[in-house]
């Protein structure tokens, strides 16, 4: 047994972290809010492509880095930490390896690897986060994976203005695979990517809050010295610390196609979702009024957290675990 990142994984994570610290500061996230600065956002996508990130999960013989889901977790955590306002997780962790695994019938993979093609994933109904920025949309429904070009695009106003969400009309053709194992793998990778980003977002909000409460003074002392603030932040940290290994373990389970992988993903999503949501609420409360202004950066990360957490599908994960534990499925009589 062994459970820590190896030197390569650490080096890649740090490279991504350093790059995003430089290229995706809060100002870049703001640039993705309308009206914003689309050119700056597009430049970030090219920077990520230059690092080879969109091929991270693509086999080497297909032009990628040949990494597995275990390796993706720390990268996606950094993507969350920076709240990258682009469909990086969708393209890198789900679409690119799917294209590679299916022989890329549409010939999209080179563009994806080169950073000229962005892929979003369709959410519930016709809502597609990053739909305004996506060249392609991956639809995972009814046991099929489809990759399609949108027919029509209508912008949607969202709480997190940097999500570039759209309501899209999509063609019904474009099936890439109906292999249930591969479709499930796409869903699991998407869930894993969400969990990892939520961890990173949680860390970002924690760092912002720890920094603020250490300097903000009220009643003659830094507010971070009051038990009410200290204990609430300790509890928030607890949630993040206990979610992190579960997310990493889920990545490993996917990478090794273990029998328990789907339940491990569900565990990861439940823990990371709860931890990030708790952290968001804690961060806003510990900041007080300043955290409630849009001039301060916290809301950028809190709103992304709510958007990702809302897509988690808590009940479906509970049902999946119920099945694994031989407990009854949810629903009503």
């Amino acid at each position, binding site marked *: 047994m062994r459970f820590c990142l190896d030197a390569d994984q650490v080096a890649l994570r740090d490279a991504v972290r350093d790059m995003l610290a430089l290229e995706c500061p809060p100002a870049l996230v703001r640039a993705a809010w309308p009206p914003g600065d689309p050119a700056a956002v597009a430049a970030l996508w090219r920077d990520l492509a230059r690092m080879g990130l969109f091929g991270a999960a693509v086999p080497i013989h297909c032009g990628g880095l040949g990494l597995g889901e275990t390796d993706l977790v720390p990268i996606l955590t950094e993507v969350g930490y920076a709240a990258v306002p682009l469909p990086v997780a969708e393209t890198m962790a789900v679409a690119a390896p799917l294209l590679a695994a299916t022989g890329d019938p549409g010939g999209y993979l080179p563009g994806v690897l080169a950073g000229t093609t962005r892929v979003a994933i369709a959410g519930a109904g016709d809502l597609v986060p990053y739909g305004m920025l996506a060249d392609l949309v991956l639809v995972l429904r009814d046991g099929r994976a489809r990759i399609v070009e949108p027919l029509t695009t209508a912008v949607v106003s969202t709480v997190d203005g940097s999500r570039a969400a759209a309501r899209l009309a999509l063609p019904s053709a474009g099936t890439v695979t109906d292999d249930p194992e591969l479709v499930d793998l796409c869903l699991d990778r998407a869930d894993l990517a969400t969990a990892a980003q939520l961890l990173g977002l949680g860390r970002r909000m924690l760092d912002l809050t720890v920094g603020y409460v250490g300097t903000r003074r009220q*009643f003659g002392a830094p507010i971070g010295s009051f038990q*009410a603030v200290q204990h609430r932040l300790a509890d928030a940290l607890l949630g993040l610390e206990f979610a992190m290994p579960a997310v990493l373990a889920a990545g490993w389970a996917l990478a090794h196609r273990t029998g328990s992988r789907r339940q491990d993903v569900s565990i990861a999503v439940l823990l990371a979702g709860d931890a990030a949501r708790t952290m968001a609420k804690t961060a806003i409360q510990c900041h007080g009024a*300043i955290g*409630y*202004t*849009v001039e301060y950066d916290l*809301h950028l990360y809190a709103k992304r957290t709510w958007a990702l957490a809302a897509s988690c599908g*808590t009940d479906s994960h509970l049902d999946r675990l119920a099945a694994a534990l031989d407990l009854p499925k949810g629903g009503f009589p």
Partner: protein
Amino acid sequence: MIDLVDTAEEARFRTSARAWLRANVPSPPLPSGDTREGFARHVEWERRLFDARWSVVSWPERYGGRDASLWEWLVFEEEYYAGGAPQRVTQNGIFLLAPTLYEFGTPAQQDHLLPRIAAAEDLWCQGWSEPEAGSDLAAITSRAVRDDAAGGWRLSGQKTWTTRGAFCTHLFGLFRTDPTAGRHRGLTYFLVPLGAPGVTVRGFGRLDGDEGFAEVTFVDVLVPDEAVLGGVGNGWRVAMSTASSERGLSLRSPGRFLATADRLVALARSRAEALSPRLRDRVIRAWVGAQAYQMFTRHQVSAMLDGAQPGARASLNKLFWSELDIELHETALELLGAEAETDTAWSRGFLFSLAGPIYAGTNEIQRTIVAERVLGLPRAP
């Protein structure tokens, strides 16, 4: 005596309020009052309310009210929110400043200001927080210096995190009149027109989209003696009276949460495909919370009519409604699933609800007040 149904008179009052609201509540609903245009539409609505004498039902007739009892006021609030009527953009004036004016104002101040508040002619915002004085309100440094020659006071300093400050016409708040006195002493409560020379209002966005969230700067602003409420140096006591209103019943009547809870239940019914047993239970418990708040306030109103002062117990209200409001909205967003991230009344309501545990004294401050002043625990060292 316990009697939890309307008296004949209350029932008549309810019927009459319901009828008027049914005929007059704007449909489709007004746009958000958090933009300048939306705010103007809300002010129009407030004036319509006033013209029909529904803006301040519990006030004396001479100020535009109906001399309604506290029970009738609760009834009106229930009907108002159940009828889908707009949030009250006049709330700072009506629910916070006015109770303080009734308690501390001179007859001249009352006669001048109360009708203008009722009629939405003056639109008031709060001036409590300063950049270095949030939870620690006693740390404020904005000051007022007596100018005998001009026959008034000269204000300077900065107030911030002022809800709808960019759209209002007046501000009430604390200024330091005696810089040598200790924290809670030497403060005076002032009433300031935002149009006065030397006042600058800078709006900056709020997380929930309120564009009127503002920072207000005072540079040598001259106000007359009549701008002092409750006496020079008496500001802390006067402000605590406002704070008690803000935390307690008057700002957040149960009607508002009962209506939200009912809308939540309706949402749950309408989203059968998203409604898991877990969410059903969450909906029920949130609805139960709204009922609990109603029972609690009824009990509190009875006690007040028997002469009790809510005092520190207003902090119990504030803790409860602020957490209830978040729970109601979070539950709705869970029902909406992935659609929760779109900009809807529920998502905007959720963002607004997050301010509840922060403004009017953070919930941490409220818990300390409850512990020390309701439970009588020893004060923090």
